[in-house]
Every structure is written in structure tokens, then in C-alpha cells.
């Protein structure tokens, strides 16, 4: 089993997987949105509002937001781990990053479900 090879501390395997899966999901969403914008020049408010009123769009966008949150969390955590050496300062910064991402995710959900 993989677990017995890598030990209890899997040393970043799940972070690695999260970063890749979230990246692929976001690329699919971004390419789809680019197509939408190219196919709809002179986009009207009604069309834009209608798009986000659909349940599948809410779910797709929510998946994007969740992916972005995990992706940003792993990314910023890696950067802080590399460049901020004092443990206490790093822990405080990590805490603020986590709070910001959670706040943004909740805010995003509020925006989506108020349409």
C-alpha cells in the first residue's frame, strides 16, 4: 500500500493531488467562460443574469470557487513555508490567509445564491 511506503505523514502527496485536480477543474471552467464571452459579444445584463440564475452554473461556479480556495491555500502555504522562517509569524500569516479564503468562499456562495 502507498500509505505503508510513505508513512503516516504522507509528506505532501494529498496537497500535490489537490493542487493538480483543482488546477484542471479551474482550467475547464476558465476555457468554458472564455468561449461564452467570445460567443456572446455585446453581452446584455439579462443574458448575464440568466446564466448565473441556472442551478448548473451555480454548481459549476461553486466548484470553481472551492477549487480556487484549496489551490490558493496550498500555494500560499508553500510560499510562506519557503520564505517565512519564524514559526509564530508564519502561523499568524497562515491563519489570516485561511480566514481570508474562507470569508471569500462564503461571500462567493452568498453572491451566487442571491441571483
Amino acid at each position, binding site marked *: 500500500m502507498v500509505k505503508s511506503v510513505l508513512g503516516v505523514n504522507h509528506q505532501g502527496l494529498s496537497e500535490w493531488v489537490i493542487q493538480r485536480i483543482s*488546477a484542471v477543474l479551474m482550467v475547464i471552467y476558465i476555457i468554458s467562460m472564455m468561449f461564452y464571452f467570445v460567443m456572446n459579444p455585446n453581452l446584455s445584463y439579462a443574458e448575464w*443574469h440568466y446564466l448565473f440564475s441556472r442551478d448548473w452554473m451555480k454548481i459549476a461556479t461553486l466548484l470553481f470557487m472551492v477549487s480556487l480556495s484549496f489551490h490558493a491555500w496550498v*500555494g500560499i502555504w508553500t510560499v510562506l513555508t519557503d520564505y517565512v522562517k519564524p514559526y509564530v509569524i508564519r502561523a499568524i500569516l497562515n491563519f489570516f490567509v485561511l480566514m481570508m479564503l474562507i470569508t471569500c468562499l462564503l461571500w462567493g456562495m452568498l453572491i451566487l445564491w442571491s441571483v
Partner: protein
Amino acid sequence: MNHTRLKNLNLFTIHFPLPAIVSILHRISGVVLFFLIPFILWGLALSLTSDGFEMFQEWANLFFVKLTLLILFIPFCYHLIAGIRHLLMDIHIGTSLAVGRQLALWTFILSIFLLFLIGVWIW
């Protein structure tokens, strides 16, 4: 002691290999995008109200708004293309030195091309 070995300490002739520059810029652009998250959410929230949508339509005619938008797309385009390069390397494409250098160069070419397309779309 051997004092005849070659030394090159001229910083103007020493530089990071291209793949290393691609890598550090991927990090920097990622951090910039992280700080843009709340502003993008603010934009999304406003664009989904009729007043906000109208306001953005008016702003979209202003040159400086277009320019700012294009500048904000720089880290986006770069991070997207450099990220795809990363995924290619995960499936062992571009892990040799020669192909790695080519991929690094293509990262810059394709991000600039994508930015150009977005610029055309904005204007």
C-alpha cells in the same frame, strides 16, 4: 593550492536558467492572483446587479479602465500557461533539459499571445 581554475563572478554574465525564471514568476503571479480574489468577487457581485452592470459598461469605454484590466490579466495569463506547463511536466513532457528550455520559452510566447487575444477582446 590551485589558483588557476576559471572564475566567473561577473553578475551581468550569470543568470538563472530560463526554466527557473518561469518557475519563480509562476509563484509571484500566483501570489498576485491571491490578492486579486476579493476584487474579482466584488466585480462579480456588482456585475450581477443591473446598476452595477450598467456602471461596468460605462467604465469599459474608458481607456484607463481597459488598460488596468489588461494589466490585471498579465498574472492571470502567465499563471494559466505556466500551470499548464507544470501539468505537462507531471506527465513527463518536458523533463529533459532541451525540451524543458523550449517549454519555458513557449510559456512566455503563449502567455503574451493569450494576453494579446484578451487585449483584442477588450478593445
